[in-house]
């Protein structure tokens, strides 16, 4: 069932090259608002590369070049007058390994809004972000304590709170649960389902069951090995999650889902 609403992201024939190495090619898909879209596929197929194009994090890699188009609410993200800093304020990112700043819990959340120019009292914003990240009850009296004293799962929820503190409309997650234990993972999956009411979420995951559990639509990537051993990622199939996992159109999708490879 396709939506007729305006997509949040509209990607057309996206390719990313690092120096001479073509990491990913010919990606075309769209991300709908208030949905969770999962990118799945074997290692090295470019899922993270594509994710990092959304918030221009690939700019940090000097040799990276992007071709094709990514539109965010209709605007070309790589247009000449686009300020990547502003882009990143509108999209939150959560990384594979929790990376809270070595500061207090409060300062971790407050940093983003502060550098975005938010003046005045941030107490309410900090509380709101922590509440939405399902962490408030656990840290409410301890905001002045170091963030690094939290457990792994708590740190990751803190990173989620930090990501949504700048009031983005998109949250990008790069294998957010891969370094967490199953219980922490479950908490974060529940959190994602709550968050999608207010945010659009794109998640890269190695965990197929996770994709099946939480996502609305799933994109299956794979990697082609070309002559010379060059491994370039491409999009195989992109559809509603239910379809991908029960009745995929492409054979290699079915092979991956059923564990025949990858």
């Amino acid at each position, binding site marked *: 069932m396709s939506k007729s609403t305006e997509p949040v992201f509209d990607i057309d024939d996206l390719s990313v090259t690092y120096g001479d190495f073509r990491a990913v090619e010919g990606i075309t898909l769209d991300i709908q608002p208030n949905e969770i879209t999962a990118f799945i596929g074997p290692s090295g197929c470019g899922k993270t590369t594509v994710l990092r194009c959304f918030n221009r994090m690939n700019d940090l890699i*000097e040799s990276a070049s992007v071709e094709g188009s990514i539109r965010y609410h209709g605007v070309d993200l790589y247009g000449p007058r686009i300020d990547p800093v502003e882009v*990143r304020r509108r999209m939150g990112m959560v*990384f594979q390994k929790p990376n809270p700043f070595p500061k207090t819990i409060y300062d971790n959340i407050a940093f983003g809004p502060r*550098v*975005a120019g938010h003046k005045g009292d941030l107490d309410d914003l900090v509380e709101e972000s922590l509440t939405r990240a399902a962490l408030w009850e656990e840290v409410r009296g301890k905001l002045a304590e170091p963030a*690094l004293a939290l457990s792994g799962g708590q740190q990751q929820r803190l990173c989620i709170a930090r990501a949504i503190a700048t009031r983005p409309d998109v949250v990008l997650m790069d294998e957010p649960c891969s370094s967490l234990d199953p219980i922490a993972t479950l908490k974060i999956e529940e959190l994602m389902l709550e968050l999608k009411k207010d945010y659009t979420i794109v998640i890269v995951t190695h965990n197929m069951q996770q994709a099946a559990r939480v996502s609305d639509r799933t994109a299956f990537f794979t990697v082609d090995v070309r002559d010379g051993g060059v491994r370039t990622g491409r999009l195989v199939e992109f559809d509603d999650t239910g379809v991908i996992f029960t009745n995929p159109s492409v054979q290699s999708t079915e092979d991956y889902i059923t564990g025949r490879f990858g």
Partner: protein
Amino acid sequence: MNASAISTAPEAVGRALSSHRRDVRGSVFRVLLLGSLLVAIGILVTLMVDIVARSLPVWGDRGVVDLISTEISADPARAGIWQAFYGSLILMAFTAAIAFPLGIGAAIYLEEYARDTRTTRIINANIRNLAGVPSIVYGLLGLAIFVKLLGGLTGPNVEGRSIISGGLTLGILVLPIVIITTAEALRAVPSSIREGAIGVGATSWQTIRHHVLPIAAPGIFTGTILSLGRAFGEAAPLLLVGGITTFFSTGDAGFMEVLQGRFSAMPVLVFSWARLPQAEFKALTAALIVIMLIVLLLINATAIYLRNRFEKGVTS
């Protein structure tokens, strides 16, 4: 049935595990390494003890405060180190004022802003080379530029051989060291922190100012303070740039005039006193060395203290 080469009966296992094969080579190495350590320490301790012992007459007769506050003189009974003492302090202040901002700034640019091009790599390699250039070469550079070329500015009444020239020369000497240690401290900051900051929409500068610098601070402090220690001990460049070892008076000169006037420094004074024939000067030289060592000790202790304070503030 087991696949192992030994039987699994308790006595056999016990015997196999407690066999204590003799590691002759390992033991020999251990002894040799310990010997190296003892020889190195032994040399240092001998030197220390020798110096302190020679300096004892001075402490008995004069005491530390008297020695420091008395002016330089050719007469050993009245010789002190005053001009050399404050000269060294002013020189270190100059060195800090020049090398720290320039060095830290350059390192931040090289590590955080410069793109990884061939030019950048060449610059980095050359800075390392500069750190290894013998200090007397810096003295020649200082002589050519600060004394001869800019003599009118640095010391109009003394042909350019002023504290300013000395301070500028030492500043340039330690500049590469400050750049290298700062760059290393910056590189040690994990990139995950930078990504986290950039990810919430911080600019490069905001990331550096709020995250990278605070984490790199202990390393930067250590590097800068240790470079001061290096500048403190240099004699060769100062001798070229005009450090004198005889008595001179600044009288009632104002601050600027002091800076533009003649100067001395403790390592320079050691160089001079060590060659004087009178026996009293041997003791005085030793006493001066002891004071220098104490100053160096204080510098290093400050570095360690500041480093510990900052490290505690960063990690939990």
